[in-house]
């Protein structure tokens, strides 16, 4: 499933990140990498997805979040 499909307070692991090198560099530099454990903190319609990982609260805009595949624990 995609990161955008997760619900509030669900825990999971990043499975695959798609997109071009530019995007992947950006997202991995901030701490989102394949295999990272995360918690979805907020996921409201038409709002960036808020995830908590590596002790950081990170907002990812929706179209980018669609490119992140996750599995729920």
């Amino acid at each position, binding site marked *: 499933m995609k990161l955008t499909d997760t619900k509030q307070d669900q825990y999971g692991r990043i499975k695959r990140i798609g997109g071009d090198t530019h995007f992947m560099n950006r997202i991995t530099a901030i701490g989102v990498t394949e295999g990272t454990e995360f918690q979805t903190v907020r996921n409201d319609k038409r709002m960036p997805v808020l995830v908590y990982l590596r002790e950081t609260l*990170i*907002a990812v805009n929706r179209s*980018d979040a669609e490119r992140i595949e996750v599995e729920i624990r």
Partner: protein
Amino acid sequence: MKNAIALLGQPNSGKSTVYNALTGSRQHVGNWPGKTVEKNDGYYTYKGTRYTVTDLPGSYGLSGNSDEEIITADFIKAGQADLTCILVDASQLERSMYMVAEFAAMDKPAVLLLNMMDVAKAQKKEIDHKLLEQRLGIPVLPFTAAESKGYDALKDLLASELENPHKLASAPELPEGSDVHGESEAKYRWIQSVLAGVTHSEQKKFELSKRDRRLLSPILGKFACFGTILVGFLVAMIICFPLMGIGSMIPQLLNVPIADLLNGWNVHPWLVSIFSIILPNTLYFCIAMAGFVFGVNLVFGYLEEIGFLARAAYQFDSLLSGLGLQGKAICPILMGFGCTIGGTCGTRVMDNWGQRMLAMAVVWAVPCASIWTIIPVISSMFFTPWQTMLVILGILLYVVLLMTIVSKVFGRTLSPESTRSGMIMELPPYHKPHWKHIAKEALLKAWDIFKRALRTVTLISLLFWAFSYSGSGNVADSLLYKVGTAIEPVTRVFGLGWRTFMGFLSSAFAKEAVLGVLNAVFVGEGTVLDATFRSAFNVATDNAVLGQAMSDVVSKAEALAFMCACTFNIPCVMALSTTFRESHSLKWTARIAAFYVCGALILSCIVYHIAALFL
């Protein structure tokens, strides 16, 4: 270069705080060769030795995602710094160590600053910095950038490391032929091995604080953000008001004495008017501008430091991504309703130059507070109160349309789809503000703007002066009149007679000048020169008389066209000069200025010809 230090760190690592604290006002802002990226370097002297400091631009890594990252990576690779001081956020050590992992490949001397120790301590995070030092092979200094007491220790460390530099003892082993994922995994593995036993971090359940639950909720949060920014803006105005007041006294105090003095020496009247009118007024404009920048930076520096701005960016991201911008642009845009200069400066929060330039162009579309003081006055000369409200509503609707047009016209080049970066940002935990530091930064910025503006505003003022100067004091003797009447057949196409066209021109200088200039050209009281430069403190315009005089010559359709043209013209000389200073691009500033002048005239043309059918 000897004793060259470079500062490297992710956003929110406190890099600019350290840079400002080290160099104070001994800073130089320029461009990186061939790039529009701002180059910040400065120096400080410690124990008799001079050290230069370069604030390296960039975002989260060194992998070349943007001009900024390429510049930073090249700078370090070329060995242009004798020592790189890397900053990491101690409260989020694992994540912010990514910069160190990226740096490791460069194999250059470095020291590591564990910044935000105060936050880490408040979160009860313990860090064994001695162990980290052993593992990394470079000195590690626990630090709190916003407190002044640690800086001597930092300067001592930098000095001794320049004498006897250390390089990182290990680097991530990147598997051969691997892609971004393989490499980043290797980097984080390296970070984890370095941090093992240094700090204890566990993934706990994260709970939003009560404040965040409100501030981040989709509807209530938007109102809360909007309200906070509005209040922040009012506070900024209250702070800068005294400074602006003092500034406005300068022309009043200096005008007559200087004129008397120079006349006593039999100086040519040209020079008298330059020294007694233009220069004191330029000084006033620049002080007012600096006062405003100070107030805005104080308030928004505070909002940024406590972590509010990141929340506002989250709230408005979806809305703004439609314009090719991202959430961070919300603040500059809202600030634009107060003053375009403030909004233009506020675009500093954007981390990509193209989007930043685009944000400035969009901010210009927002009508500033001065416009709201002139439009109702002019409108009420021609229209009933109800119609005036319609005019204002129309203007507001056009603002939205114009923003869309601007983003369409400039967005393709400034922020092309391929480099368009959506918002991926961290929402830092709420910090306690360090007031002393915020005030110091605001003062530095205000002083900086003041120095820079003085030159530009003087130059443009002189230009305007040359056009509006008339030896006899009669409008008809000025170059402006001659040119204005000569091109009236052309300006008529746009719905403007020569008088209203002059008002339009003055609206590019300063919106406050418009009423005074109208008074000069319609009623014949005072010269255009006086009206333009003295309007700010001498609003002796009798609106009833002006209204009578105007409505005799000007049709309702022309009035409507004129108001539209003024509102959407170049905001003012100061905004123009700030945009140039902030963007470092004369080409783009000129392009955007040309766009706004043409856009205002085209709008005026359309409005006039349609309105002429009905009114």
